[in-house]
């Protein structure tokens, strides 16, 4: 009995499948016919291949889905068949690959670059299309727009990942001891004393990778630029300034952190630092919220916040640093610029964009982004709304590399403060020389 029903069912299924196939086939041929018909009549259904280069393989699914939506929309709105070749190399060698492509006239139509580090040199080399007139440009938040604007006032990229950071602190330790995040260096010293009195190491130190000690520089320079030394970066670019002006801004707080930090800092990398901070081995960590995922992976219950780092006794110099990293740009040599620009605008589409940015866990970058973000981002946004923020000062990448190495050597006792500052002046001068 059973067997016969099974058999019947099977044959039924097979029959429907076959029928389905037949139907599909018929439909397909019908489609191609009509498409061909369309072509002959009005030549409308263009097909376009769009090459994209976004070095974020960990988000491949999200991008694939969003691009599929875009393809559907483009077909519906403009009757263009877009096929997208999305290339996602790992972040380590992405900029190398991209440079080779650009230099060999094989530029992708849309590519991702680092806003602060790469826009100036790419713009100068003529690899970035001016996007100022695009609709999305008007939607960008005021706090975000400057990081993708060139020195001559053109918007050349669409920021995806933005950062608002200072240092991280363990909220549980702070509330247990009744501490609040300090606004001046003196208050910071008091906080440090109180933490030490309760046998808690105030700071996690992780200086194995040179970009971590480097973080103190944008914070110090940012604070000084906003308060006392507004044209510091300009002066440096004209070979007129010197980092000796920044001596106390950099080293007062850096010394305080080093004197009250965990041991063996030169052997602790970023991930180890995140683990130490997550385990509560230190109450504060000079680091941005980009380590949030790593921290929560090792301790999902940790409650931590972002606060601005005091660099002197002027509370108005205690500021959150705003900057952008991964940003999308369009190649001026693109053959399908129209479609590429459509995609750029679709990234900040009024309806679709919200869910996309939320899924990627990026911070809001445009007025249309209304989703709820993470507590540490909200923390930082509170300061930003009070005006206690500063745009990441445009320090050349080579100077940032230099300061990382210099501060490592300073921590290891191999360089004096003046040596570090001298090396920085030299690095900036040679940057000026090379990028004349």
């Amino acid at each position, binding site marked *: 009995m059973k067997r016969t029903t099974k058999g019947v069912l099977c044959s039924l299924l097979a029959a429907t499948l076959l029928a389905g196939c037949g139907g599909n086939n018929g439909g397909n041929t019908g489609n191609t016919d009509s498409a061909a018909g369309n072509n002959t009549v009005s030549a409308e259904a263009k097909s376009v291949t769009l090459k994209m280069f976004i070095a974020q393989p960990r988000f491949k699914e999200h991008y694939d889905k969003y691009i599929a939506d875009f393809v559907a929309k483009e077909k519906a709105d403009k009757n263009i068949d877009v096929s997208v070749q999305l290339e996602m190399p790992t972040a380590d060698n992405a900029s190398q690959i991209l440079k080779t492509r650009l230099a060999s006239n094989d530029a992708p139509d849309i590519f991702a670059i680092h806003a602060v580090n790469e826009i100036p040199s790419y713009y100068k080399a003529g690899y970035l299309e001016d996007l100022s007139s695009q609709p999305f440009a008007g939607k960008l938040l005021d706090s975000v727009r400057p990081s993708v604007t060139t020195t001559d006032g053109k918007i050349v990229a669409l920021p995806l990942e933005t950062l608002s950071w200072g240092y991280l602190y363990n909220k549980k330790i702070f509330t247990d001891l009744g501490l609040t995040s300090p606004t001046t260096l003196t208050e910071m010293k008091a906080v440090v004393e109180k933490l030490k009195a309760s046998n808690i190491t105030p700071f996690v130190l992780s200086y194995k990778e*040179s970009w971590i000690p480097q973080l103190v520089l944008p914070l110090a320079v940012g604070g000084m630029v906003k308060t006392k030394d507004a044209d510091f970066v300009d002066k440096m670019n004209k070979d007129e300034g010197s980092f000796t002006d920044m001596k106390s801004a950099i080293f007062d707080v850096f010394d305080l952190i080093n004197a009250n930090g965990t041991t063996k800092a030169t052997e602790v990398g970023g991930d180890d630092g995140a683990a130490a901070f997550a385990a509560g081995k230190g109450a504060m960590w000079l680091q941005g919220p980009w380590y949030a995922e790593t921290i929560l992976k090792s301790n999902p219950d940790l409650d931590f916040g972002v606060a601005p780092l005091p660099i002197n006794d002027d509370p108005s110099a205690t500021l959150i640093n705003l900057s952008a990293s991964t940003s999308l740009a369009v190649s001026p040599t693109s053959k399908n610029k129209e479609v590429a620009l459509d995609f750029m605008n679709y990234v900040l589409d009024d309806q679709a964009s919200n869910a996309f940015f939320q899924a990627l866990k990026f911070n809001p970058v445009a007025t249309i982004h209304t989703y709820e973000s993470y507590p540490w981002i909200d923390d930082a946004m509170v300061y930003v709304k009070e005006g206690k923020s500063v745009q990441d000062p445009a320090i050349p990448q080579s100077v940032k590399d230099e300061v990382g190495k210099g501060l490592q050597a300073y921590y290891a006792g191999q360089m004096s403060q003046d040596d570090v500052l001298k090396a920085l002046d030299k690095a900036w001068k040679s940057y000026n020389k090379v990028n004349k």
Partner: protein
Amino acid sequence: MPVTSYKKYFSLLAFVAPAFIFYTLFLLIPTIGGMFYSFTDWNGLNRDYSFIGLGNFIEALREDPDFVNSLLFTLKYVLFMVVLQNVFALVLAVFIESKVRTKGFFRTIFFMPNMISTIISAFMWTFVFSQVLPQIAEKTAFTFLDQLWIGDPQVSFYSIIIVSLWNGVGYMMIIYLAALQGVPQSLKEAAVIDGATPFQTFRSVTMPMITHAITICFFLTLNGAFKVFEVVYGLTGGGPGRSTQVITMNIYEEAFSNNFRYGYASAKSVILFVIILIFTFIQISVMKRKEVEA
């Protein structure tokens, strides 16, 4: 006979061609290209660049203390590596050659580290230096183990040497083993009959007979030590600061992370190339003279 000589060259070319084409395509042309760029101020991104003659070379040797320091650090590393790697490899080879039964076992054990890629062994040792040794120090009385193995510039040089030796000795050992097996038994027996001690046999019979292997091993270690990158990159990243920065790392930094001065970095590479060329040339010509035939 012009026809046969033509044929001879043709077959020679036919056999060499596949390798030679790839060699030209992927090594020779980029090398020449690099030398070409070393006279320019190309930044790796711009389409245009200008020739600046020997400016890059002069700057590297005169105005770049980081480059000179990394050069000195590399020379120190080369000295330690060439001596230690060959001594250890030769001692191990002689030791293993004397074990008739367990030869295969020891050979495998000592060669094993060489089969792990250098960068991975560097990361493994990073873990050993920063986690395992302090733990051992805590559990046992060996408190000297609890120190900054890779974070302290004074110590990290020796940590780098340890890892490089661990990784590189096995390969040299295999070459020495092969050479030792090629020493005619009759010569050794004759020496024993003449009343030579084992040490005398080794010094006066074995050593001269394996000079060709010593030449090769010196050549390989010298070359490899000058070009060291992964071990230092994986262990210390050149830090703290630039205290353990080797010359290749300085070049890498110049080209890929500082101001992207490809031209300048190429000039530094050419300097490195010339240094290696001179050193190996001297080494080969000196050691070739000492080789003997059985």
